[in-house]
């Protein structure tokens, strides 16, 4: 049996960072990355943004150049699927029957799109957006497309809408909740993005549940039917209704899984030789005192660094404050922290303009800030939250007040 040193399952942001960080932390044994993807790890965030809008080319997507992996003896096994993990004998079995031995194992299995389960879901013209191939397939289908419907008014749906509008396509977004981004932002931010998209020519429909993708005899989608009987013509549909973590392998291996593979602040599972990092891992969050699975690149990178240190026998607990961003048209949204559990918001700036920030509090404590084209507020918010600084809410709306005073 081949001894593969540290085996990393998965081939995206967390896997790429973990492999590199292992070498930086002094890992001497082989590193083997097993990925079902056909290419080396690439940046996912541009897929719905610059890459789809044809501002970023595929060659700019690679997270690290091939030469770096070669120089550092990081062995990629691409287009390979792991079928089983045996933690007792420390072995991984591939779908092709090959058996590999590991000394340490990392789950960076990520997440996959949540598929819509309605009549017509398998029709021609129904697309999802997660992998590079998804976007390449979408781009090919765009030629000649007249009417695009996007199901889901979350970040992926809205970024995709913005990119497609910039390419000149007709776009309708259908969201089931009463407002866009309802799960993640305050009403002021939802309203802002609705206005932004409508001003750019996107039709936004909220509080409509999609019931069926109606198809022609050829099997191609022709319209989207909603539960209230309303219909929207469509020759191309993009579904963006969230992702699901890939937990099956870890579950089958007997590792504890909740919303994600359960790990501690050192990215360790209950098995001392197994770590997990990225979208698939659920971990204790500093600053918020809760177990959380995050879907973000900064989180994947930070957790991967923590995991690499752990595997090299060092102790570097996860200490990062979660943050997120989204680019749509000329607007940059930056989010510092997590707002779950907020009971009050304070708006700094004029929410009818393109520059304001929304500050989320639980009682007196600042939880998170959404910054619309306010990068300075974002930078300061990150520092204020992570340093748990006291905030006088009444001063926030005074734009002449310098937030740095609180640091």
């Amino acid at each position, binding site marked *: 049996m081949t001894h593969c040193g540290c085996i990393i399952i998965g081939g995206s942001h967390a896997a790429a960072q973990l492999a*590199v960080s292992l070498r930086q932390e002094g890992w001497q044994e082989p590193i083997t990355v097993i990925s079902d993807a056909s290419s080396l790890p690439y940046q996912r965030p541009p897929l719905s943004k610059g890459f789809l809008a044809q501002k970023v080319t595929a060659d700019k997507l690679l997270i690290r150049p091939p030469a770096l992996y070669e120089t550092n003896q990081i062995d990629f096994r691409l287009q390979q699927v792991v079928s089983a993990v045996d933690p007792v004998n420390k072995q991984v079995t591939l779908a092709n029957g090959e058996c590999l031995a590991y000394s340490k194992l990392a789950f960076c299995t990520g997440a996959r799109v949540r598929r819509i389960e309605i009549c017509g879901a398998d029709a021609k013209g129904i697309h999802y957006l997660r992998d590079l191939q998804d976007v390449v397939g979408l781009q090919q289908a765009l030629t000649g497309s007249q009417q695009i419907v996007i199901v889901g008014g979350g970040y992926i749906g809205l970024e995709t809408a913005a990119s497609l509008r910039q390419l000149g396509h007709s776009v309708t977004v259908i969201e089931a909740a009463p407002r866009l981004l309802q799960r993640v932002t305050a009403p002021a931010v939802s309203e802002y993005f609705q206005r932004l998209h409508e001003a750019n020519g996107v039709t936004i429909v909220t509080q409509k549940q999609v019931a069926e993708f109606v198809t022609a005899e050829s099997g191609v989608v022709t319209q989207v039917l909603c539960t209230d009987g309303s219909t929207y013509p469509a020759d191309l549909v993009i579904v963006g209704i969230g992702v699901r973590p890939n937990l099956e392998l870890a579950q089958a291996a007997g590792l504890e899984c909740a919303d994600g593979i359960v790990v501690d602040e050192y990215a360790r599972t209950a098995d001392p030789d197994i770590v997990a990092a990225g979208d698939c891992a659920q971990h204790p969050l500093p600053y918020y005192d809760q177990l959380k699975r995050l879907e973000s*690149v900064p989180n994947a990178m930070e957790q991967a660094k923590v995991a690499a240190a752990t595997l090299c026998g060092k102790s570097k607990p996860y200490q990062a404050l979660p943050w997120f*961003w989204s680019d749509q048209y000329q607007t940059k949204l930056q989010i510092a922290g997590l707002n779950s559990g907020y009971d009050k918001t304070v708006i700094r700036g004029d929410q009818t303009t393109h520059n304001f920030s929304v500050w989320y509090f639980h009682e007196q404590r600042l939880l998170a800030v959404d910054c619309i084209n306010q990068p300075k507020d974002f930078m300061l918010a990150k520092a204020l939250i992570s340093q748990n600084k006291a905030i006088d809410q009444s001063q926030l709306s005074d734009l002449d007040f310098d937030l*740095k005073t609180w640091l």
Partner: protein
Amino acid sequence: MPLIKYVDHSGNEFEADVAVGKTVMEGALDNMIDGILAECGGCCSCATCHVYVDDAYLPITGPADGMEKEMLSAVNDPKANSRLSCQIVVTEEMDGLRVEMPESQY
């Protein structure tokens, strides 16, 4: 290929050949040079690729403006020669460029 010199907060210097058209940030990542985190992958969203540009090269790299300038106004220890390295696209004239990386990015 232009040679870019990356200096860490302790004064250690690392050199890398960076192709024209790449960013100074990518040059660091492609060569496993620490001190440039690049959490957002280079889209001017995180300010974790902050560098201080050698004064001699400032006329070539130019100053920060717009979104980048605002981000830099709130980083730790901003200076007149602060730039986000994801926004510096390498040209032939930058051969020999020396950038220092702040301690906060280690």
